[in-house]
């Protein structure tokens, strides 16, 4: 199986899927809008359908290995409550199966989530996390079953989880174990959220986003990475200044290549807040640190804006001037991809990258469609129509 990263067209929101070579799947955020389910309108992509096809099944039940919720805003967890299973995994019933509820084997939970109530999906995520954390607290025998696993990312907010520190990954650490399985060629470098935000006057929830770098190697013994993808949630330029400072301070930019990127998911749906305070007309100059972050681009690196179509107006996000700033750091317009208009505005499809020994390669959809059509026609002309195995 090829390692892939998919960025789904979900309007102004985030939803990405990382697929590893052993079939392990990691979902980063979700924005499953009600009208996208079973959508026959080519303008609205049926994201749930593609997710179900891309993930695995265990005993006929769809599951993903890891779900990373960067933060609790609705455009990052919309549809969580109705599309993902919550509760005791052994009680997954026919009803849940019929509703195609996806089991999350291991959830990544930032205690910054749901510090206050904003939406039902976030509350449901918080509640499910609390259910799992209680099992771990009680040292319940079932706590390590898939569906009960959990990782705490970053530091505590109002609630105290310090007794569960063995489940915690703080900024600056490299996570290699996903859903109880150690990966040899894949890892995640956690960049944020930080402790500092707790005392910060900045009350913007976006600055408490999980920020991480997904890292792919060809062989476990390699020093270099063949693919590096940066996922920034809705983090703003304040977060990135700290990320830059801390990473350099601990020399992780050199030792771990922790700032390099082949793919950069433009934070906050290509918002100006990555470059400076909003509104842009009051703060038109991008901060040095944000520009420095973009300078860690590797050859042929690409920026992905997971947002609606970016037009030249004052809207934010996505922000037109932000797009222009990104493009300045790229080789041209072609390296800036917008989920809403790819391949075309009238029929957006996921933007898919494959991680190969030659690097991160964009999958040419037209070519893929042609190959798939050819494969289907050859397969259906087979003399033995149906495969079998004992």
């Amino acid at each position, binding site marked *: *199986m*090829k390692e892939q990263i998919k960025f789904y067209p979900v309007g102004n929101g985030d939803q990405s899927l990382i697929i590893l*070579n*052993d*079939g392990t799947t990691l979902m980063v955020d979700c924005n499953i809008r009600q009208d996208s389910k079973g959508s026959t309108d080519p303008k609205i992509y049926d994201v749930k359908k593609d997710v*179900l*096809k*891309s993930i695995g099944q265990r005993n006929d039940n769809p599951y993903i290995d890891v779900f990373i919720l960067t933060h609790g805003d609705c455009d990052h967890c919309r549809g969580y409550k109705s599309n993902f299973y919550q509760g005791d995994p052994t009680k997954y019933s026919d009803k849940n199966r019929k509703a195609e509820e996806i089991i999350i084997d291991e959830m990544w939970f930032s205690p910054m989530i749901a510090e206050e109530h904003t939406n039902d999906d976030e509350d449901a995520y918080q509640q499910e996390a609390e259910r799992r954390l209680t099992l771990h607290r009680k040292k319940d025998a079932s706590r390590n079953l898939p569906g009960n696993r959990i990782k705490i990312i970053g530091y505590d907010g109002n609630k105290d989880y310090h007794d569960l520190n063995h489940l915690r990954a703080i900024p600056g650490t490299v996570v290699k174990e996903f859903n109880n399985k150690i990966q040899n060629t894949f890892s995640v470098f956690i960049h944020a959220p930080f402790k500092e935000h707790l005392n910060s006057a900045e009350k913007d929830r976006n600055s408490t986003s999980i920020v991480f770098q997904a890292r792919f190697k060809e062989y476990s013994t390699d020093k270099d990475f063949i693919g590096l993808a940066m996922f920034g949630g809705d983090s703003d330029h304040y977060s990135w200044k700290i990320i830059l400072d801390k990473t350099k301070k601990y020399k992780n930019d050199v030792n771990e290549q922790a700032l390099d990127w082949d793919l950069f998911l433009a934070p906050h749906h290509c918002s100006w807040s990555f470059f400076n305070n909003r509104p842009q007309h009051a703060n038109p100059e991008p901060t040095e640190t944000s520009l420095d972050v973009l300078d860690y681009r590797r050859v042929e690196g690409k920026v992905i804006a997971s947002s609606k179509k970016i037009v030249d107006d004052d809207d934010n996000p996505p922000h037109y001037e932000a797009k222009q700033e990104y493009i300045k750091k790229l080789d041209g317009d072609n390296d800036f991809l917008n989920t809403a208009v790819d391949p075309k505005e009238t029929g957006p499809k996921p933007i898919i990258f494959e991680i190969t020994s030659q690097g991160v390669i964009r999958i040419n959809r037209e070519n*893929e469609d*042609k*190959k*798939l059509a*050819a*494969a*289907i*026609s*050859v*397969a*259906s*002309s*087979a*003399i*033995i*129509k*149906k*495969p*079998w*195995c*004992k």
Partner: protein
Amino acid sequence: MRYNFFKDIEEGLKSYPLLHWSNKDDKRVIAGRFIAHKGDIEIEEYEVEISFSKDYPHDMPFVVETSNKIQPRNATRHIFVEGNLCFGNKQDTLRLCKKGISFKWFLDKTLNPHLCREYVRDKTGEYPAGERSHKAEGNWEGYYELFKTTDKESILKNLSLLVAYPTFSKNKECYCGSGKKYKRCHEKWLPIIFDIGRNNVEDLFNELQTDFNSYKP
């Protein structure tokens, strides 16, 4: 004309220049790259290792997909425990191979479509024409289609004729218990039964018989 194994293989290799003879654990195998294709359209490249059982050309060659592109490597992707690809149920494959197959035919008509459908499975999550049930039921399914019935007992009776062929006579009483001679009763099934081929059917018959008995109360 007498069957010539090496000539047969050479014929196949002519059309597939990326495959070649190779040594594997003191055994001669065909190894190399196989590009699933439709005409000029190259769909996906796989590495394969092909070996032949003593029953070849009356049985399919063993193919191991060594590039590990098909994952997971188990029955969900129709890979045997031994690591070789499974092309179809026994009933289907035996019937195809009963008169002997050629290597080129195998590459064109079995391996290429098989890898194409695995490619489709990778991309869409589904096999384009569906798949057989696992285990014995998948073998029964072939006969359901052949005899147009799901009555396992009647299928076994039909097959038993084939197994007992040397003592079979059309003038004997029909197996169905009608009291009529076979030729005046169930003879219409005879061409189908003989089309299955007698060579290898015995093992399969025993397997199905055992499976059938295991369901009996």
